[in-house]
């Protein structure tokens, strides 16, 4: 497989003086810009739409500015930050974000691995099974959330409630009684197929000869899974978990459609809180401060994520 080799640039200090060398250096520079040219439109676009606004977010976050009031924006220093850090509802939102992300990722990874192992066995109708399994991931999240709320977990007409009637849960209001668990369940339903797809690809790239050799040597299935399969699919599990957490940290659709962050603040996560501050209260200063806070929190997670991602890519390239 091809690899990127970054061309080492000759140290410029050695090449000063001498007309010919200088022209070579300028040709080098020309070549460098020629190479950069195709990259520039995309790079400039990304910087304009993500980096510049972020600088503005920081700027707004030290202002008192509400779109609903006629008072002009004014500088108030770090007061927005002090406000949100002292606001118990922000702490609840951060906590809910952590709970939702960790639970949904952990459960969907565990289920994803189990189902991938199951689908990797000698079974009937593998292709169809895989096709069915990825359905939940492809359905529009807003649509799925409403279907769960109105036709599956509805205490009056829900299908799940109907199935659970024999054990006395026929009229149990899951979403109101266990709001966070319900959101986690819906997210797990949506993300398990994603994890399964990645792990299945890992299982299929496993070295079959090693497995056969181990079998000949009399290794038991559980031992083989623990000592051969698991280490070889570990990078795939990590990749799935990291990508999954980066997406689930931002989850908004399911909460908006099923609980609207309630009851009370039981399912208000940071994205939903941001939505409330920015688009219900129109408090630009506070919303921006929450934005900066969210960025800092995400950066901590993302640093790990990106490091893992790069190590996986390097493994791929070495192959």
């Amino acid at each position, binding site marked *: *497989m*091809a*690899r*990127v*080799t*970054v061309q080492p640039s000759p140290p410029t200090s050695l090449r000063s003086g001498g007309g010919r060398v200088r022209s070579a250096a300028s040709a080098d520079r020309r070549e*460098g810009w020629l*190479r950069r040219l195709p*990259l520039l439109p*995309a*790079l400039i*676009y*990304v910087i304009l*739409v*993500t*980096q510049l*606004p*972020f600088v503005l977010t920081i700027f707004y976050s030290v202002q008192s500015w509400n779109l609903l009031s006629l008072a002009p924006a004014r500088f108030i220093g770090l007061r927005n930050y002090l406000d949100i850090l002292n606001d118990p509802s922000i702490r609840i939102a951060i906590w809910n974000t952590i709970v939702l992300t960790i639970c949904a990722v952990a459960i969907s990874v565990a289920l994803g691995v189990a*189902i991938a192992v199951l689908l990797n066995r*000698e*079974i*009937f*109708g593998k292709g169809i*099974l895989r096709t*069915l*399994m990825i*359905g939940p*991931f*492809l*359905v*529009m*999240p*807003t*649509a*799925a959330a*409403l*279907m769960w709320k*109105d036709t599956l977990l509805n205490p009056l*007409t829900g299908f799940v409630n*109907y199935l659970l009637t024999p054990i006395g849960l026929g009229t149990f209001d899951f979403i109101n009684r266990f709001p966070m668990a319900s959101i986690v369940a819906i997210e797990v339903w949506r993300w398990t*197929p*994603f994890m399964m797809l*990645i792990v299945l*690809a*890992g299982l299929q790239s496993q070295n079959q000869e090693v497995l056969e050799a181990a079998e000949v040597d009399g290794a038991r299935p559980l031992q083989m899974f623990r000592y051969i399969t698991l280490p070889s699919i570990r990078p795939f599990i990590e990749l799935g978990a990291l*990508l999954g957490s980066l997406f689930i940290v*931002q989850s*908004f*659709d399911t909460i908006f*459609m099923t609980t609207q962050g309630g009851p009370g603040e039981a399912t208000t996560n940071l*994205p939903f809180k*941001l939505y409330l501050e*920015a688009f219900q209260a129109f408090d630009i200063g506070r919303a921006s401060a*929450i*934005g*900066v806070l*969210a960025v800092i929190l995400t950066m901590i997670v993302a640093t790990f994520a*990106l490091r893992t991602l*790069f190590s996986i890519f390097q493994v791929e*390239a070495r192959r």
Partner: protein
Amino acid sequence: MSVQAGRTQRGKAVASKVGWSALAWLVAIVFFFPVLWMALEGLKTEVQAASIPPTILFTPTLSAIQEVLSRDFPPYLINSASATLGSTLLVLVLGLPAAYALSIRPVKRTRDVLFFLISTRFLPFAASLVPLYILARNLHLLDNIMALVIIYTTINLPLGIWLLRSFMLELPHELVEAARVDGASMRHELTRIVIPLITPGIAATSLICLIFSWNEFFYAVNFTSSIAATSPIFLVGFISGRGLFYAKLAAAATLASLPVLLAGWIAQKQLIRGLTMGAVK
């Protein structure tokens, strides 16, 4: 004796295959059931869709689908399609040259650029939401498809570049070298040689753009209201539904989900690779 042992072993293997298959089918059906139920509810009458016990056997009717389509759903679908198509095209136009500059004729510090690009994808939308909203408001782009096209392009461009790059890295070196010796310009090299060879990569990129743009909700609900509202916004109208509306809801949900479902099912191989930005093949 040994023949019998062989037979029982084979019998055991078949039994185990049947057992594991049954388990796998059970699991898959549990996961798929909500999708199936959505489609089924959309083919019922309103009374059947809300009945207790649930209606399992029924004569399918298209009345709910006809009703949502004859009401105001089509404009929402058209908006979704325009936002998706527009941003996908923009991702390809910007992403193909960029991927080229990060693989075939790599710029210095390629790694840093890749790192930077993907970090923008995982920056929470909180980072840029408020300024983008105010900018859109001042430029009169609120409730305008263009705002969604611009934002969806931002969401998909980093993934697209990584993905396209992973396909370009697989091209045989000699091919590109040969063209270069023949004196092909960079533009020529990209449009005549690279692009035709990575059509699967372009398909995978388009699929990922389709999934993320078509299903996107957060920006759609906050940046549009009526004229430019996309199909998930139509579903918001059902949140506090009164009376009998499950069949209509399910019909709309099915119609809204169909494009991504079909595309994802058809291009399953591209799906994994796309979702992992080319890391998993």
